[in-house]
């Protein structure tokens, strides 16, 4: 479990309740025009309710007012609930933050206690074992292991050395670090994250602004329809309309469902990003992730597990596989690199060994000059393994062509060949290969269906790159990558109008991260990379980019689905309210023919529509918080499915719902 997925405990519910009512404040409500109209309507019906005390209409007026009031409460509850979920995460983070004291280093090398809030950029602090790192910064002295579980949820400690960045709120486990503070108070990642998940720094995203504009115009249209309906209906008689019913009609027609849930959708979207342990610097970045056309991924660490693995020993003629394996094993015994260890593991398999053999000799470490490593055994044998060209130089000429042929075969399939020789006699080749992470191919297939192109970036030669690209199922690759290649590729894609996402951690990635539309920086990365990106993955898992894209898409789909549903619902409401509201007008009473739901009484019909309109809000809160079901599929298929689910069913469901509510009201003598 990760730190971010903490669930809310009961103490938050009181806060939700309090916020639900606090948000009724008209000053705050006016920012949501749809619900503001409902609030004004409620006040109007309340006045009419008070005015009708003692009259026959009192019960109806009162019920309408109550239902309207609950409609607003459901809306403010949805928002408060979404915020509370964010606050639960934020509070957890804040607890780690508040208790921090820092050992600030003075010019003379001594230190003094200061509160972490007093630390400003450029100050140096001493961090000793069990100290909490007081603020974000960069290690300037020392090496130490840091427990980052409060931020990432990952319990394995991380080694931090000079030049690495550290995050405020994490804890040093061993050794001693001097950290130069790189942020001012209130601007650390923790602060940003708290502000973000709480919704405090939430700004409307471009799409949210556009949707709000549309909802505003729709509200205006329905306001127009209802207001002009008053004189139009009075053409048939002076008492053809009553105000309470007109308010009820208006509230039913304006898009209250999406209006009530719009901000909850946005807040919940940010929380879903936070739940995968990604800090987005803005909601805009998350939304942009949904629009991504091209993703550029590093091969090493992202597509393949960090290192190459030995997969095969290939002997030259007249040499047995076991001989190669044994020589390779002996040469690699003291090689602690992952590649070396993988050679040992493979040799143990081939030779059916239970334990490692005990040998005496002197290890020859790898050097850039010789480009080989090995062992000088006590019995005088000298075993070497290394790059083909290096081994060829020191071994007899007769096996050279064969060795080179084997090496070519390995390289041709995207592997890396290593040669093994003993006392100048070439034995054969070790095949080292990149291993593609499991499950990635399926993910890339998903992306292809969604129209997103994946590009792999690697420093390998073209053949190796092509083979891995094929194996991983990416659409394209950049081989023999030079530092400037990434940014060039991004610019080229962008010049075609595409949106590009990438991940990166090194300082040399920073320009590309800044250039990309979505730049996901690794938390283990350098400060420069983190500053350049617009999202930071706290777990430093580059495949997270895929999750963020999903969240971005789901966010847009949820908004579209609930808007469509909201508008589609209106059809049934008309059929409930129009016949009912004119039932008492002589010429227009024939409109009862439009009462196709067979609602029993006019007031019951109007109340049923209004109650349905209110209840649909809490019913859809789970969709707003979790997002509507999302599958990776082509646009057409997804569109057809969503249109059916939210458009077609959006027309049908309220007919059934309103009819059902009318029956229930009938049981209580209200319809």
């Amino acid at each position, binding site marked *: 479990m990760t730190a971010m997925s903490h669930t809310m405990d009961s103490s938050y519910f009181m806060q939700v309740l309090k916020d639900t009512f606090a948000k009724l404040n008209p000053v705050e409500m006016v920012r949501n025009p749809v619900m503001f109209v409902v609030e004004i309507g409620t006040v109007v019906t309340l006045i009419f309710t008070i005015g009708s005390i003692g009259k026959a209409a009192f019960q109806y007026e009162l019920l309408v007012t109550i239902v309207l009031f609950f409609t607003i409460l459901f809306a403010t509850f949805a928002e408060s609930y979404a915020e509370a979920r964010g606050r639960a995460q934020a509070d957890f983070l804040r607890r780690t933050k508040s208790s921090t004291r820092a050992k600030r280093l003075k010019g003379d090398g001594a230190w003094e206690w200061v509160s972490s809030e007093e630390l400003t950029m450029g100050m140096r602090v001493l961090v000793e074992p069990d100290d909490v790192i007081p603020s974000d910064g960069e290690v300037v002295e020392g090496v130490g292991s840091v427990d980052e579980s409060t931020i990432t949820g990952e319990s394995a400690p991380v080694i931090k050395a000079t030049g690495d960045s550290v995050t405020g709120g994490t804890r040093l486990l061993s050794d001693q670090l001097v950290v130069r503070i790189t942020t001012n108070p209130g601007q650390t990642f923790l602060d940003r994250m708290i502000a973000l998940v709480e919704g405090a720094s939430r700004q409307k995203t*471009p799409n949210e602004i556009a949707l709000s504009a549309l909802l505003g115009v729709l509200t205006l249209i329905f306001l127009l*329809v209802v207001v002009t*309906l008053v004189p*139009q209906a009075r053409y048939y008689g002076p008492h053809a309309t009553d105000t309470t019913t007109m308010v009820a009609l208006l509230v039913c027609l304006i898009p209250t469902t999406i209006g009530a849930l719009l901000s909850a959708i946005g807040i919940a979207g940010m929380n879903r990003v936070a739940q995968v342990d990604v800090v987005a610097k803005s909601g805009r970045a998350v939304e942009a992730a949904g*629009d991504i056309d091209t993703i550029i991924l590093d091969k090493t660490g992202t597509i393949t597990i960090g290192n190459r693995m030995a997969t095969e020993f290939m002997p030259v003629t007249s040499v047995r596989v076991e001989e190669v394996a044994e020589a390779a094993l002996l040469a690699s015994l003291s090689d602690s690199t992952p590649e070396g260890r993988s050679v040992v593991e493979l040799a143990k398999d081939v030779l059916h060994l239970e334990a490692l053999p005990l040998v005496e000799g002197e290890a020859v470490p790898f050097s850039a000059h010789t480009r080989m490593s090995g062992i000088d055994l006590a019995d005088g044998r000298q075993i070497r393994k290394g790059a083909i060209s290096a081994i060829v130089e020191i071994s007899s000429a007769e096996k050279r062509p064969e060795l080179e042929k084997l090496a070519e075969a390995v390289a041709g399939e995207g592997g890396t060949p290593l040669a093994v020789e003993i006392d100048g006699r070439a034995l054969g080749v070790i095949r080292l290969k990149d291993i593609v992470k499991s499950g990635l191919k399926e993910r890339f297939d998903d992306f292809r269906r969604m129209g997103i192109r994946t590009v792999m970036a690697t420093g390998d030669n073209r053949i190796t790159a092509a083979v891995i690209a094929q194996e991983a199922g990416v659409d394209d690759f950049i081989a023999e990558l030079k530092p400037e290649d990434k940014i060039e590729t991004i610019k080229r894609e962008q010049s075609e109008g595409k949106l590009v996402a990438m991940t990166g951690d090194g300082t040399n990635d920073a320009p590309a991260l800044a250039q990309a539309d979505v730049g996901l920086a690794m938390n283990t990365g350098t400060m420069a990379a983190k500053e350049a990106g617009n999202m930071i993955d706290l777990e430093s898992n580059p495949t997270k980019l895929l999750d963020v894209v999903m969240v971005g898409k789901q966010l847009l789909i949820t908004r579209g689905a609930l808007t469509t549903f909201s508008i589609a619902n209106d*059809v049934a409401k008309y059929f409930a309210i*129009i016949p009912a509201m004119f039932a008492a007008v002589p010429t227009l009473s024939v409109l009862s023919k439009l009462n196709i739901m067979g609602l029993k009484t006019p007031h019951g019909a109007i109340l049923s529509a209004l109650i349905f309109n209110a209840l649909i809000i809490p019913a859809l809160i789970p969709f707003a918080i979790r997002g509507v079901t999302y599958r990776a599929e082509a*646009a057409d298929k997804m569109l057809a499915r969503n249109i059916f689910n939210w458009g077609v069913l959006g027309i049908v469901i309220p007919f059934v719902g309103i009819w059902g509510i009318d029956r229930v009201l009938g049981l209580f003598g209200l319809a």
Partner: protein
Amino acid sequence: MSLQTVAVWVVVVGVFLVTLKPLGTYIASVFSFEPTFLDKPLRPLEHGVFRMFGIDPSASMTARQYGVALILTNFAWIVLSYVLLRLQGQLPFNPQHMPAVNPQLAFNTATSFGTNTNWQAYSGENTMSLFSQFGNLEFLQFVTPAVGGTMAIAFIRALSGKKMGNFFVDLVLMCTRVLLPLSVVFAILMVWQGVPETLGAYLHIHTITGSTQVVPRGPMASWEAIEHLGTNGGGFTNANSANPLENPTALSNLFQVIMMGLLPVAFFYTLGVMTGKRKMAWTLISVAGLMYLAIGAMVYFPMELGDPVINALGLHGHIYRVGTELVFGTGGTAAFETSTMSFTTGSVASAHDSALPITQLAYFSAMFLNLVFGGKGVGLLNMLMLVVITVFIMGLMVGRTPEFLGKKIEAREVSLASIAFLLHPFLILVGTALSVALPAGLKGVFNPGPQGFAEILYGITSGAANNGSALGGLGAALPYYEVTIGIITVIGRFASVMAMFLLAESLLKKRSVPASSGTMRTEGILFGGILAGSVVVLNALTFFPVMALGPLAEHYLLLAHHLF
């Protein structure tokens, strides 16, 4: 359904289907300044016009400049037309010695013809001199549909990533290359069918019964041609195309139906050619086409089945029909009325007032939608406005910021499109509410109940949709209606176009996003279905209450044998 009816509809739909591609491509060539077969004879004329007015054909305009040029030019014509109507008594070609037109009628007529509405609060044969007919009003019948065409052309250019062009050049080309050649052909066809074309005085005829009858005539054939080709719809005489001199035969009726639809339908294809999105054009044509047929069915079937009250009396048969022009039969009348309402022409071949409520409901629907091909060019703009709104709402459901033709639809675009959408219901609903609330408006209601309500609603809607037909029964010659409807036509014509121009320019400025399998396609059956669905639902939600108060109430009352 009689064989004649089937034949009429097959011919009408067939002609539209056959002509839309060559005509649409031709229009696209003209406005992409590619060579066409009319270059040789017409270019000297056009260049003469450009020189005369000091137009630089190579200077392109911004959205604002194009819009302002368009609106100012129109206003100049309206003022000119008003002045000429007021001076009618002093002007030549006035064999009947018609006096000056009164101020509010002159205002109403000038605005109405100057906005391609052609609402007529007068009867032509008793009010207008021949000069006013062919020199003033017919001039407007040429240039105002040309303006409508330029609106669409400028918009399409921006959509296809080009500059918006020069309004004056487009205006001249629209007249010389599109309207004039077609008018000549159809005027000759009209003359062939017996429509008069003369500058002579009205005829005084001694009838068989011994009395004397005055038969108004004039340059009618040329008038009929441009009246319908330009989806104008202002009749030479009061009875419009129900007057046997304006529309004498079933064949002339068919010609007029075809003339009305020819250009509005072809413009949809022009969109496809100029943007390179022919498949999208076919999708939009199919959506509008199916709506055209649906409206046709709503017009035809009540007409054919007859009045339930009369049917209940046991009086069956052809002569007991109401709201049908017997010369053309139910099929021919339905084809004419469906077209005149769908293409917002507004000429009539039967009395709309006598139509049954469901038929009237169809007339209303066509004007509310205003995009079932709609007026020349303008209907296309309305369709694209709803495409933008649909793409925005539905496009979200594919999980990307909605795109149309590779351009992202964001706050500015969706605001402009929805404001343009809001304008039409605003004019109709507020105009109707005012008219039924004010004593001045109620004075014009000659029928009680829902029919009276529908008459007011129809008049206002006809103005807002720039249709120009009337349900009748309304005292449209009252100063209140002359002024109100005059103002509504002007706002309805120009306000939403300005919003659409700004929308087009905003799209033009955006960088283009390449389509992928994750992009919502704005073509094909799925999109067509979604577009049709949202067009119908959005309009139904806006206009359901007024339809309930008008035609729907009347329909149910009629079924209960309650008449007004």
